[in-house]
């Protein structure tokens, strides 16, 4: 079924004002949420719940469905199955055909392309949500200036959006999103159009703003550092499903799947098989460590960056060749492949620069290796 | 590939554009029917090998073109729908004296030293036989209630013969007939064919003063239409052919006039339902002898052209 959101004309079913007990204490929750375009599933069953004053990041590669999920929460799309509730009230439920349009959901939203209305001034853009809520003119002016002041643009109220730089436009968009103090603010990859330095500054500013205003927010991004910096909860999404929903700390310490670990760039992923009493890299004769009892015959593991110490090639170390290397601020992060097991690529942090083609010996702290419970066959 | 395509199509365009003019030997401007001049040119070219270039339009447009081109004229032979053109051009000294050997059988009132009629049309009432109105027999019939809002009048400003009919009839009763027509809902409706077209479909029942040959040709094609020549009299319009004195192809032009007046040429005229200029060529239609002609003083009528047209405009409004 195609998605739609009701209009004045199509007279949507009135939204029942009942409170679902299971979600009553959540600012936002979704249950069994699915969305199909024709036969193509975009979301395949999403369950989540976000507490008041918390920030949830939806993290994933493009096409994973994160923006679609956000638009479902915003009311710009209607679910094919499942329900969404905001502040305990069901705003969309495919089963009862209940649907409350975006303007009834008391939201703020920041868009990737800013979406400032070009025919209004900066001030006009920011005061629009207040106007829609019937705030008096004097109050509107005061609150608009206050919101613009928060993002450092109070001097620009009379300008046209097109006169401003990209960073300034995004600040206006943020002011517009917070001015009416909505119960929920949605961010749709707000920083992805900005260059790196500006982006890093804005992440900081945003984090401060969210904390100081106590905002409840959903933040969509494909940048794991943004997500881990801003969010209380991170949902890593893949193929229309939430792969893992956890706090940033849990996510880093205990990624649920190799894919999550890989997406968060926590280290190298390797497949191991038990041969004799050793764990051996699959399709090679290179042994990683001794095998304990009770484990399965093969497994996938994450070898975190922090678990590897690089050095010269010595008999007790795994020999590897440097493929590429990039400076990362605290050192050179090199990707290496094991000699004798070319298909295994690991990440190593080195104090000094490693050149492609160099040999390097790897000392691996076995305790830091994270074992994934069951071998998961990657869809690729 | 694109280049060759371009040059090819340019070549085609150039060839098509030049085709019209380059090989023309005699240029004829005519206010007569297109199909007549087409057939006549074809016959002429077949007989003499001389090609004919044609511009066909209403008399007003033909005259306008000649005037616009006055500084750089190209026309050799002009066939007008109004004898007045011949008189006017002769006075201006624009014509070449020529008497075709084939003009012997053309009555004197249809030729002068400078011009000779190609054929003659007359004006009548064109009436749609399926219109549900009684068949009119007189001009004044069209002021009767049966024809309320059902009559078109060709614009006398756009047609020489229409003007002559208007002037002749208006002179008899000080425009009373036209005032009555207007009171009965008759309207002035453009040039001859424009006035006739609505009568064909039945939007109007009759044309007051239609050019007969167009109507007769339509009747021959199967349209339910007829021409009535009122017994009280009508006007005829001889169509003068003349050779312009700036013509660089005067011999060819004279040959064209000869062909026009030949048996073959006159038969073509008759086939268009015009009266042939030569009295010895038969035609399947009423001839001059069958019609009663209105009497009027040509010079006086044309002397008051502007006043007459002004009065008509006043009666019928518009413009």
């Amino acid at each position, binding site marked *: 079924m195609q998605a*739609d959101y009701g*209009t*004045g*004309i*199509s007279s949507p079913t009135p939204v029942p004002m009942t409170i679902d007990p299971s979600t009553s204490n959540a600012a936002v929750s979704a249950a069994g949420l699915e969305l199909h*375009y024709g036969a193509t599933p975009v979301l395949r069953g999403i369950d989540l719940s976000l507490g008041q004053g918390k920030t949830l990041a939806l993290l994933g590669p493009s096409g994973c469905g994160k923006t679609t999920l956000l638009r479902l929460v915003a009311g*710009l799309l209607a679910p094919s199955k499942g329900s969404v509730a905001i502040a305990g009230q069901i705003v969309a439920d495919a089963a009862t055909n209940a649907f409350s*349009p*975006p*303007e009834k959901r008391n939201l*703020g*939203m920041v*868009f990737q392309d800013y*979406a400032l*209305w*070009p*025919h209004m001034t900066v001030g006009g853009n920011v005061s*629009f*949500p207040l106007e*829609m*809520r019937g705030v008096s003119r004097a109050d509107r002016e005061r609150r608009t200036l206050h919101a613009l002041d928060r993002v450092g643009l109070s001097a620009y109220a009379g300008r046209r959006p097109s006169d401003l730089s990209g960073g300034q436009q995004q600040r206006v968009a943020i002011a*517009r999103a917070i001015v009416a103090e909505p119960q929920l603010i*949605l961010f749709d990859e707000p920083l992805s159009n900005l260059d790196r330095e500006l982006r890093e500054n804005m992440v900081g500013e945003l984090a401060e703003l969210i904390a100081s205003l106590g905002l409840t927010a959903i933040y969509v991004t494909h940048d794991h550092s943004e997500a881990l910096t801003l969010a209380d909860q991170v949902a890593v999404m893949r193929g229309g499903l939430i792969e893992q929903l956890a706090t940033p700390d849990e996510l880093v310490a205990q990624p649920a799947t190799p894919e999550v670990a890989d997406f968060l760039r926590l280290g190298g992923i390797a497949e191991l098989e038990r041969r004799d009493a050793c764990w051996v890299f699959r399709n090679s004769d290179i042994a990683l460590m001794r095998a304990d009892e009770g484990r399965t015959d093969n497994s996938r593991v994450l070898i975190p960056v922090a678990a590897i110490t690089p050095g010269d090639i010595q008999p007790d170390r795994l020999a590897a060749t440097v493929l590429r290397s990039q400076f990362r601020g605290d050192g050179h992060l090199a990707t290496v492949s094991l000699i004798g097991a070319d298909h295994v690529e690991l990440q190593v942090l080195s104090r000094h620069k490693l050149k492609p083609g160099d040999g390097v010996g790897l000392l691996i702290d076995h305790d830091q290796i994270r074992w994934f419970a069951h071998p998961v066959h990657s869809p690729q | 590939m694109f280049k060759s395509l*371009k040059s090819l199509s340019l070549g085609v*365009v150039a060839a*098509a*554009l030049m085709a*019209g*003019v380059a090989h023309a030997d005699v*240029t004829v401007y005519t206010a007569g029917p297109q*199909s007549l001049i*087409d057939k006549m040119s074809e016959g002429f070219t077949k007989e003499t090998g001389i090609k004919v*270039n044609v511009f066909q*339009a209403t*008399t007003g*447009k033909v*005259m*306008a*073109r000649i005037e*616009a081109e006055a*500084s*750089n004229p190209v*026309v050799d032979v002009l066939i007008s729908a109004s004898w007045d053109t011949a008189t006017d051009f002769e006075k201006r000294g624009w014509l070449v004296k020529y008497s075709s050997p084939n003009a012997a059988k053309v009555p004197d009132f249809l030729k002068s030293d400078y011009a000779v009629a190609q054929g003659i049309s007359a004006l009548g009432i064109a009436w749609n036989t399926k219109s549900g109105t009684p068949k009119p027999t007189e001009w004044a019939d069209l002021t009767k209630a049966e024809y309320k809002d059902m009559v078109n009048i060709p614009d006398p400003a*756009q047609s020489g013969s229409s003007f002559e009919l208007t002037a002749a009839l208006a002179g008899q009763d000080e425009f009373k007939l036209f005032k009555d027509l207007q009171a009965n809902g008759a*309207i002035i409706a453009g040039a001859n*064919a424009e006035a006739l*077209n609505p009568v*064909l*479909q*039945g*939007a109007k029942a009759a044309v007051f003063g239609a050019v007969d040959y*167009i109507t007769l*040709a*339509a009747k021959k094609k*199967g*349209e*339910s*239409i007829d021409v009535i020549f009122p017994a009280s009299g009508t006007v005829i319009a001889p169509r003068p052919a003349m050779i312009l004195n700036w013509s660089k192809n005067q011999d060819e032009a004279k040959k064209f006039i000869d062909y026009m007046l030949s048996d073959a040429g006159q038969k073509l005229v008759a086939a268009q339902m015009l009266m042939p200029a030569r009295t010895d060529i038969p035609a399947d239609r009423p001839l001059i002898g069958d019609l009663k002609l209105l009497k009027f003083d040509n010079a006086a009528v044309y002397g008051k052209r502007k006043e007459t047209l002004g009065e008509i405009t006043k009666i019928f*409004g*518009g413009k």
Partner: protein
Amino acid sequence: MAAKSIGGPAPAAWLAIAGLVLVVVVPFVAIVLQAIFPNLGQGSFSGPFSSFIATLNDGALIGMAGNTILLGACVVLASALMAVPLGVFRALYRVPGAALFDVLLLVPFMIPPYIATLGWIMTLQPRGYLQQLLGFNLSPFLFSLAGMTMVMAFNTFPVVYFAVSRTVEAVGARYADVGRVFGATPARAFWRITLPLSAPGLAASLMLVFAAAIEEYGTPAALGRRAGFQVLVTGIDLRISDWPIDLPGASIMSLLLVGLSLVTFLGQRWILSRRSYQTVNGKPTSKDKRPLGALKLPVVLAFSIVSFLATGVPLLSILATALSRTISGGLAFDNLSLDNFLAVFQNSAGALGALANSFSLGIGTALITGLIGVTAAYTVVKTKIRGRLAIDTLTIIPNALPGIVVAVGLILAWNMPWLPVTPYNTGFILLLAYCCILLPQPMRYATAAFQQIGDNLEAAARVFGASGVTAFRRILLPLVFPSLASAMLLVFALASRELVASVVIAPVGMQTIATFIWRQFEQGSIGLGMAMAFIAILITTLLPLTLLALLKRSGLVAE
């Protein structure tokens, strides 16, 4: 050689200037001079401005100018009333059969206005097709200002419909939804966001309609005369093509008409430059559209009625007339006949010659305007050479030159006795006229295309060793070709049916499709004229579509 080594600009600019002078400047200057010096035709500069007083004192002129503006305004109003609601529904809602309606509403472009008018006359006059079918007629309505307005609005409203549906669609998807997130109801989002953002595009399209309406000849000539309604174009035509002719008067009226068009066109440019909101990023997709709900039936009905009136009635009327043995026979089965179509194919009255002439002229016009358009656009957009502003200005003038004015100017310019060679009285004069009238199309498309090409693409070609000319030919030309090709196809379709200029300046012995049809009507062979009209509409619609499909398949044209 020195210029060439600097780059493509110089040759392109020279080509553009030469073409513009020949096609635009010559006729325009001729009109201005003739208006000032009434005896110019005799080679005399005596009595400057003497005709102004006589012409401008003519009470009829004020009436004609007033009628022209009145008719233009009425057509604009009627087009807006029809097009805006339909466009908005098309943009925001899922209208069943929307794609089909789009095609049906495109067809009026392909029906020459004078043919559509005659189709309406045959349908609505007493005992017309409407009366034959339903027993009543609408003659008093048709032969009035209201009738003229309706016929012309049906011809021009697609311009507004497509402009509105496209801008509202883009704006609606991108900006109006944002408004709803911030609390606006659909109605408020429409009034506060969608409408103001669409207004410039709407206003610009309405001004285009106004400009087209004041230049139109066929409809006022066929309908207005009966209503005693003269406009400037018919007045000019009368002065120039009926005896006695009045060239100075026609020139002055032409300048008046040019003035009106120019004001309109400058107004349009001003609106667009001042308040044009780029909404290119909007990704309107049908899945974002809303269902019509209870309005489904009325909206589909409205679309069907308008499509039927704009496309169905004229086409059916043309076809019915073309297929009738006799007009007086009416809509009867035994009156059905293919005689008229056979007559066209048997080259009766030079029908095939007229087709060939028009299509040759159409191809020639498309190629020449394409060449001038692409070089002029390149010079204006991509170079910094002096004089490009002059080129820009020259390409604006034809927008404000109605066909009849171009024709008058060409006669004045090329019929001077002292000219050693002249295109006058050859087919080239028509080519010149069509090029002048239609030049703005390729220019507009090519300018837009060049503006979207980054300067670095050409620079890269130069760095990698291409000369300026080569860079233009190998890099820029292929990139603008898709836009240029569509513009040239449009030019072809419009040129092959042009009436106004053709009637006035067609050379001796040369017929075009439009003059052929016009002449058949003037001689009472309505059926033959309509058969020709039907064939011409078919060809000018199908040929460009086929070519586009072929180009698309070969990958030369996107979208």
